[in-house]
């Protein structure tokens, strides 16, 4: 039996400033060591200045994951030497001296399965190390402290996963949840990282670190399970250890034992007084909390009769569900949902495409309305959407410029219908005996009109002309 537990680190990328100073939380745009100050660079005499907004955001995450939230939280020092750690200690949280972490135990569902959360803690990200030079002899180590002090939330789970697939599903759900909460953009490079603890057959736990992406996490777990299974099969004991994921060789490698034996000498961070999270703050956060993905999904299904599958896809993506909320009306909701999930998500499948797209909620609303009133066929609406994304022109302008308007003029359509009937005698005979096959003829009319024919009118005309 395989057990996997996770430690997920997620940067609160939507915050303005770092956890303990006013440097930017979004360090990605800076040249090395330009987003630093005495506090995040650990200059002697500097003191941490707690970002209260970070505490609120972290508490929101804890609430969204159904975790207990204590009335008072405290910060601790985790002491160890590392080149990327300006103070040679990290300010973090603990639950060993009582529940003082921002979040206690909680659960999150993946399908029918419940994954237990052990705790959620708020802490500072270290800097980044860049190794340059090929051989170890002339390798140089560069440190960029721009990231140091970025607010980080660590989510620790119980070893409740049984397959790497479950891990991946969970991370996708978590990632959507964090995005939906408006606390982080997990798609930013390095914004969401995870370590895995893997054990098989009730054996020793092995921690895997240095995993760059969710995709690699799945691979690393696979590798580790296979490695442990094969040791187990041959009765070789599995050592409790920390292993690193070697991205190049796609294997896990044992870390030096020195690192495992670290004694972090945790103790209370005296420079940050305990923070009270009183019921009023929790109530305020509850009010500010966006609707959960599940509740959104339920609402889409029950209120707008949107199919479960479409509702699922739509609700779990914050960007598109926001777009949906802005574009839909009582009457066109289903149409808007369909355009987004069947067309738009495919057209805007990268961040870059989303950012360069000129489509607005107004476009989407008008396009859905146009489909519903028969001004444009569903088929032609795809071409319209393409054009709007590129040009940002209004729906009516695009329809007329591209000549996408429905052929709903009866006399004009009748001419085409008559021609099709003349060209397809066999199909006409078939339709007479089996009404279902008339769809073939409707298709032919559509073909002839490049999809612009009003489908209802076409059907009626065909029936009338054939005499059924």
């Amino acid at each position, binding site marked *: 039996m395989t057990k996997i537990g996770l430690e997920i680190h997620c940067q609160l990328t939507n915050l303005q400033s770092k956890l303990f100073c006013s440097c930017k939380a979004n360090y990605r745009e800076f040249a090395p060591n330009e987003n630093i100050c*005495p506090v995040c*660079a*650990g*200059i*002697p*005499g*500097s*003191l*941490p*200045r*707690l970002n209260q907004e970070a505490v609120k955001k972290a508490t929101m995450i804890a609430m969204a994951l159904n975790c207990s939230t204590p009335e008072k939280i405290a910060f601790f*020092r985790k*002491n160890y*030497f*590392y*080149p990327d750690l*300006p*103070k*040679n*200690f990290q300010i973090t949280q603990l639950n060993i001296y009582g529940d003082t972490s921002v979040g206690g135990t909680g659960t999150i569902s993946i399908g029918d399965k419940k994954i237990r959360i052990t705790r959620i803690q708020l802490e500072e990200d270290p800097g980044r190390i860049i190794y340059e030079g090929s051989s170890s002899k002339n390798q140089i*180590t560069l*440190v960029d402290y721009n990231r140091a002090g970025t607010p980080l939330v660590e989510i620790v789970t119980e070893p409740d996963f049984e397959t790497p697939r479950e891990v991946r599903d969970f991370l996708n759900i978590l990632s959507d949840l964090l995005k939906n909460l408006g606390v982080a953009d997990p798609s930013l490079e390095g914004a969401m990282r995870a370590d895995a603890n893997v054990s098989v057959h009730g054996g020793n736990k092995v921690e895997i670190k240095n995993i760059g992406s969710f995709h690699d996490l799945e691979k690393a777990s696979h590798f580790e399970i296979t490695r442990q299974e094969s040791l187990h099969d041959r009765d070789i004991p599995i050592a409790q250890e920390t292993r690193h994921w070697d991205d190049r060789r796609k294997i896990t490698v044992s870390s030096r034992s020195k690192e495992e034996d670290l*004694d972090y*000498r*945790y*103790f*209370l961070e*005296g*420079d*940050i*007084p305990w923070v009270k999270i009183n019921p009023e703050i929790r109530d305020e956060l509850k009010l500010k909390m966006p609707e959960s993905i599940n509740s959104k999904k339920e609402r889409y299904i029950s209120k707008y009769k949107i199919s479960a599958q479409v509702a699922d896809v739509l609700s779990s993506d914050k960007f598109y569900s926001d777009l949906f909320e802005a574009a839909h009306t009582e009457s066109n909701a289903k149409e808007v949902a369909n355009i987004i999930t069947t067309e738009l998500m495919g057209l805007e499948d990268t961040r870059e495409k989303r950012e360069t797209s000129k489509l607005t909620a107004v476009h989407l609303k008008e396009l859905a309305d146009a489909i519903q009133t028969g001004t444009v066929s569903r088929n032609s609406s795809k071409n319209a959407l393409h054009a709007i994304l590129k040009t940002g022109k209004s729906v009516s302008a695009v329809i007329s410029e591209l000549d996408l308007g429905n052929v709903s003029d009866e006399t004009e359509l009748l001419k085409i219908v008559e021609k099709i009937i003349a060209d397809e005698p066999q199909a006409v005979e078939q339709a007479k005996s089996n009404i279902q096959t008339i769809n073939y003829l409707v298709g032919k009319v559509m073909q002839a009109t490049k999809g612009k024919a009003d489908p209802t009118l076409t059907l009626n005309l065909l029936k009338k002309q054939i005499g059924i």
Partner: protein
Amino acid sequence: MTNLKISALEFVEEAKNGNISVEDFIGKTLERIDSVEDKLHAFLSINDKALDQARELDKKIKSGEDVGSCFGMPISIKDNMCIKNSKTTCASKMLENFIAPYDATVISKLKKQDAIFIGKANMDEFAMGLTTEFSAYGPSKNPWNTEYVPGGSSGGSAVSVSSFECVASLGSDTGGSVRNPASFCSTVGYKPTYGLISRYGIISYANSIEQVGPLTRTVKDTAFMLNLIAGIDPNDNTTVNNNNEDYLANIDSGIEGKRIGIITDMMGDGIDPEVLTATKEAISKLEGLGAICEEISLEMVKYSVAAYYTITATEAGSNLARYDNLRYGYDFPVEGYEFNSYISKARRNFGPEVTRRMIIGGFVPSAGHAGKYFLKAMKVKTKLTKEINEAFKKFDLLIAPTVPVLPFKIGEKIDDPVSLFLIDINTVTANLTGKPAISIPFKIVNGLPIGIQLLANSMNDKLLLQAAHALEQTVTLPEVPI
């Protein structure tokens, strides 16, 4: 004739009235420093722009421009406080070349009031010690007898104030580091309520208990300094709001009817008889002023020094971990070293006392030992705080000698760290409990000073200064013989 011996308030008054030329006063101060530093070694560095700053201020004063309330008063600053673009060494070889890139909050507040920072004062390395003998740049000497230690760790501050090398000084007090040298050098030394003064820019030793404190010639001067530097600071989350309290106002209210507890546990075994006599004299003087004095025992005091060293070593081990010499420090190239071997080699530049405490600090909070040492020490801290809070239900103030012994000779105790540790017995309680405490110069015996300590409850700093002022008025002391 410029009188360097005036108090801060007198300086301010004279400068305001145009009776003092700042340039002249600073010039004379620098001459005084020049003539006595060989014997005293109060300073690690002297501000070479002090005279220029003085001239600028004189111009401002003459032209009637607004001038800050310090009017160019020369102040010495313990060398663990950051002054932008100047060296801040903590009296350590580790920070030999460290130039602070910013001002500590207390520094920027005093800058705004046009104080002149005359120099950086000597101290025990990273404020660990009580004699300044652990300064990597050599000890300061007691101006009352230069064969004797001036106390510490803010020894340079106390020496510079008592020997007229400046008008006032800022020190820091982690376990008595302001009060102890104040007592040994016969100056006023103040440790405020924890959180009253910002620590931003003060290089941490044991951050959960230490405070900045002024060293001055009079209690009024301390109140004056406190008015300038106390109060909430957005850069230090542990500061408390004092509602802009005016500590000078009503300072002469007296202590009639105030109840004072005599801490018997600070006057027991090992106390010098002269110190005991002086303390009894102080008590009867306070009674003469209408105070009601009564003995009180604080049981936890006997464990306080052990708790103090356990907690401070733990915090020091963490606070000093950043000195890996990678981004600042001293000249020691990194080429050819692996990270861990580099830092362990670089960190050998710490002196013996810092090294000792860092080794203790690595041990007492470590897994497997924390329960026996660090957590136990934290329990003592909690219990002591409870005990003293109980005492303050009955008493307005507490009294004890600042240091149980007289100043001793340089070198006399340096090889006996435990006996040195024990000298802290009377001062660490205020730090462990966060209470304000003050040392008032009280007596000179055989040419050596004795200070008396008063303590008050948290945020009762004003009351404490009123009492200290009242006691101070009862004594006249001889002038320092240097």
